[in-house]
Structure formats: C-alpha cells, structure tokens
C-alpha cells in the first residue's frame, strides 16, 4: 500500500537508548494532513528523537507511528513518503546545488536529463537558479537552507521533517526564512513537522504547537491556545508572556475563588472555570504580562479588579511597541508587566518606584 496522505498518528510511542530511561515517554498525538506542526521544548526533551522516529532514522522502543493510515514502524525512510531537512542541512559538500537537489532522483534511477530538469524546476521554486552550479560551501546560510529544503522536497514527500531548520541563521534571516518555510508549506500542500526551541518561531508558524518536556507532551494545540491558555506552570513559563503566581485557596465563592499569597496580604480573585478547587489547595495561576496594568499607589482602583499587588520597579526595558517593567511583586520569581508604549510614556515610571499591579478579574487563569 502506498502512502498518499500526510496525516500522522503517534500512539504510545516510547524510545529508550539505554533500556533504562525513556527519552520519549509514551507520546500520543494526531497531526492532520497538510498541517504545520511545531515541536518545541528545551534541548534533550525528546523532540528531535520523535522527528527521527517519524523519519525512520530511529526505531521506537514501543508504540506505533501511523502515516496516511499505515503503520510505518520498521519501514525505511523512502517507503514512508517522508523527507528530512537536517540540522545544519547536511548538504553533500562535493556536489553542486543542482546535483544535491537531484540526488534522490539519481539514486531512484531516473535518467540524467529527466532528473536535471526536475531539479532545475525545483531550483527555480526556491529561487536559486543563479547558484545552480555552485558548491554548498560557496553559498550563504540562507541559500544553503533553501538547497536543503529543495533537496528534501524533490521526491514529492507527504511529510517534511525539519530539524531546527532556522537555528543556523542570524536573527534577520531567520524571520525571513520563516516566511519562506510557511510559503513553501502552503505551496506544496504537505505536512510539515518542525522542531525548534524558539517560542516565537513556533507560534508564528504552526497550526499545531506541541510543547514537550522530559519525553512527554505537556500541551498540544493551536498556537494561540498554547500561548494564551497554558495548561500548567511549565508551559506557561516555557512559552513566556505569562506571570505565574502560586498561593493557597482561601475561599471558594460561586464562580470564583480567592487565592492568598504568603507575602501579599490581599487575596487574588480567580475565575473557577469548571475546576474542582477546595479551600486549602495549593494552586498556581497565570496572568498574561500584557494584561497587567500598573498604577500609582494613590490612584483610584477601577472596578472589577482582581487584585492590587504592591510592588517596586526592579528594571525597565524599552521594547519598541511596549515597555517591559520588571517588578518584585512575588518572591523568587519574575513578575513582569508589558505596558503599551503610549500608556507608559504618559506617566513614565522609574526604577525603585512603588506601584500597584492589577488586572481585570477574569483574566487570571488557574493552572493544573
């Protein structure tokens, strides 16, 4: 049976290299055909191993990998209709751009004229026509990346696997190539699985973001969901943009509960959101950094505010569109407010000022 679709299902996939610890530990995931999926996590979290198992360069110790309805465990890469773009590209250094791209067709026994024609068409698609006869070492990082992409795409795979494709590029080029990857993915209409450790890259590109830690999936969902509604402390902290506070539940009152913190006297009101929470529980909550408003201590608090944490300004960083204000609202942990530039400069704060950090009550979320 030939694989014609690029939908992927991982069922209970485990991988252990030493037979003792699982690098990938029971991963279950469904990726739709034609989706752009990003695996994100710190180094050593197992994301590259998952990619290599889908590609067929590594066999899972347990579990199934299904591509286009067929279990592919044990099949060589060619029969999976996958192609991999390697970290730092792994181009053939002794072959020209054209021969690099035509390599897969050459080993499939396609005639020379035919394969060079196909390669030239692909070269045009990645806009490298001028460089077709150059060796990889005579290309810039961005051009090498395009060669790698073209080489992977030439066989018409249903799934393209990209291992940290942008990590070798400098910042500006990275943003540019990010667009290019997305454009290629739409153009080819196939599934892309992209491994990265950069949050911005993941949420900018992906339809499906998969956050991993220690061989397990912490959260998988659309970019906005993972960023705005992290399930637990790990995801909230890893994806960034959130302040995480912990405390003890003081009372539960209908649709909300009140959290008390060891240092801040006043309680914080948090919506319950169908969570089962009882008095005395230890709970983490997250508040988006751009939901935090800063007020002078003497200002009148508008209604509907959940809390007013009194804090001192530790540092201020200008970021262009907003100003990052770091506060000592919670001990041992960061508490940051992203204040819109215009708001900030209408009443600029200084390091050492005492402020009240506050937010609209229903913006806080209880974490698992």
């Amino acid at each position: 049976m030939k694989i014609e679709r690029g939908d992927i299902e991982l069922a209970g996939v485990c991988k252990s290299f030493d037979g003792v610890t699982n690098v990938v530990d029971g991963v279950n995931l469904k990726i739709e055909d034609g989706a752009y999926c990003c695996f994100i996590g710190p180094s050593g979290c197992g994301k590259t191993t998952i990619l290599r198992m889908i590609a067929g360069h590594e066999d899972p110790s347990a579990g199934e990998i299904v591509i286009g309805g067929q279990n592919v465990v044990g099949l060589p890469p060619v029969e999976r209709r996958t192609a991999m773009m390697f970290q730092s590209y792994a181009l053939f250094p002794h072959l020209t751009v054209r021969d690099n791209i035509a390599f897969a067709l050459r080993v499939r026994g396609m005639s020379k004229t035919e394969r060079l024609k196909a390669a030239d068409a692909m070269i045009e698609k990645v806009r490298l026509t001028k460089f077709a006869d150059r060796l990889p070492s005579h290309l810039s990082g961005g051009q090498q990346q395009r060669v790698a992409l073209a080489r992977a795409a030439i066989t018409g795979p249903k799934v393209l696997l990209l291992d940290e494709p942008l990590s070798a590029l400098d910042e500006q080029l990275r943003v540019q190539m990010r667009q290019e990857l997305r454009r290629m993915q739409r153009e080819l209409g196939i599934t892309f699985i992209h491994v990265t450790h950069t949050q911005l890259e993941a949420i900018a590109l992906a339809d499906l973001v998969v956050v991993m830690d220690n061989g397990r999936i912490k959260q998988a969902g659309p970019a906005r969901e993972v960023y705005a509604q992290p399930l637990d402390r790990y995801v909230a902290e890893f994806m960034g943009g959130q302040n995480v506070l912990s405390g003890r539940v003081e009372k539960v009152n209908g649709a909300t509960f009140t959290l008390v913190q060891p240092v801040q006297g006043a309680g914080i009101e948090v919506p319950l959101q169908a969570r089962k929470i009882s008095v005395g529980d230890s709970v983490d909550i997250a508040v988006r950094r751009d939901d935090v408003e800063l007020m002078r201590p003497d200002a009148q608090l508008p209604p509907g505010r959940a809390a007013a944490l009194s804090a001192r300004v530790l540092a201020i960083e200008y970021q262009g569109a907003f100003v990052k204000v770091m506060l000592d609202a919670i001990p041992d942990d960061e508490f940051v407010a992203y204040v819109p530039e215009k708001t900030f400069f209408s009443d600029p704060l200084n390091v050492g000022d005492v402020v009240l950090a506050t937010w609209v009550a229903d913006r806080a979320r209880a974490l698992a």
Partner: protein
Amino acid sequence: MQSSPGLPRTKSPSRANLSGWLYVTPLIAVLVPFFVAPILVVLAASFFQTDGFGGLTPGFTLSNYIEVLHSALTLKLYLATIKFTFFTWLFTLVIGFFVAYFLVFHVRNQLLAIGLFLVCTVPFWTSNIIRMISWIPLLGKEGLINAGLMSAHVINQPLEVLLFSDLAVVIAYVHQLTIFMIVPIFNAMARIDKRVIEAAVDAGASRFDIMRHIVVPMSKSGIALGTIFVVSIVMGDFFVVKVMSGGGSASVVSAFYEDVGVLQYPTAAASAVLLTLVLVAIVALILRTVDIRQEIAR
C-alpha cells in the same frame, strides 16, 4: 617587548620577513643537508665519467643517460616495477578502503575503533626483515599453506609459486603497505559528517549508492595520499623484491643497487635521476586528478 605580537602592522616589513624565515629554519635545516644536498650530489654524479674502478672524473657527459636509456634492460625493469607497483596499489587500495570504511562506519564504539586501528599497526612492531622471513614458514614449499592443501588433497605437489616469486613480492608489499592506505583514507572518511550519510539514506540511497556517490568521492584526498605513499615506496624499494623473489625478479632500484655494487656510480646515478623524474611525474598526475589542498580545505 613594546609592540604587541597581535599587531603585525607595527613591524617593519624586513622584520616580518626575518621572522618568516625563522619559522621555516628548522625545516630547511633538515631538508637541505638530508634531502637537497644528496640529490644534488647524485645529479652531479650522473654527469661524471668513471674509470670503472669507482673513481669519478668530474666533467659533463650525457653518456650515462644514453647508456641507461638505450639499454633494453631499462624498459624491462620499469615494466617489472610498474607491475609490482600496480598490483600492490590495487590490493592495498581495496583492502585499505574497506578496512577504513569498516572502522569509520560500522564500528559504533569510538574506543573500539581506535583499538582496532592500533591493531592495524601491529605488523610494524617488528622489523621489516623479520616480517618477510616470517612469510617463509607460511608460503614455503613445506609451509603451512602447502601442507594444508596437500593434507586436504587439493593438490598433490606443493605450489612453487607461493614463495620466491612475483606473487610473493606483491604479498609482502601488500602486507607491508596497506597501513599507508588505511591511515589517510581513514582520516578522510572520519571527517565525513554522519548526517550527510543519513541525508543520503533519507533520499533513498542504498548502501552501495552511498559508497559510490558519497563515501568514495569524499575520501578522494585520502585515496590520493595513500596512493602517493604506496607508489613511491614500492617504486623506490629493492629489498622486498630481492628477498621475496629469491633473486628471480629485479626492479629499477635493485638494478642500480647492483650498479653501485660493481662501482658503476655514474650509471647508477643516472638511473636514480631518471626514476626520480618518473616518480615526480606520477605524483604530479595524481595531484592533478585530485586537488588535495582543496579537498582538505573543504
């Protein structure tokens, strides 16, 4: 010192020049007395005349060269030498390539690979002469191979071709020189990024495709270096030919060694100069085929 060594601009050109010469002094101190001077002496001697009893008359004559080039023996000797060189090269290349390939791509454990690599050098723990003598109990008329084949009734008479023959010469050379192929090829292969191999697998290449399209082209510099080692050693040697052929075969060098023995220094010198030129031409040809500098810089 006042000026910082990291700023060559502050040095005057003549001083920079001087320090440049200082860097190469050790090399010059070795090369000039032990390499350049002897070659010049040989070159000069090849134009001298002799009285036939070892005495040399300084002068300039081409008669030595004419004698060497006109002799039918010279061609025969070169053909014999080239035959030994070719077969030795072929076998050392095939064996060396696959040993290096095995060590680099099939031995996963790096410690084991280094250990096996060192095992390849074991033959060099004894002297060349002992190594060659030790072939006799193996290849000789009553040697292990003949005895084994006889007792298995594969043959009725011992094979004479095994020892004191051209075959024996090539066997001894291959045994002696395979390491000179393994080392540079191993070195070139070890520098191949494993992800490049994986990328080829990903593209659907078979093991043979990978060897043909990736490993061989990327080991070219090692193959070229090994070839230079083997070719120049075989063409410059006479001892193995003398011992292993039992005096039945000769090579270019063994012929002019005989010349030296009968005090024909100028003819020997002329032959030596001729051989040097041939070797230089061969090495130049190899370097033209494979741009070693570019391959290594890549």
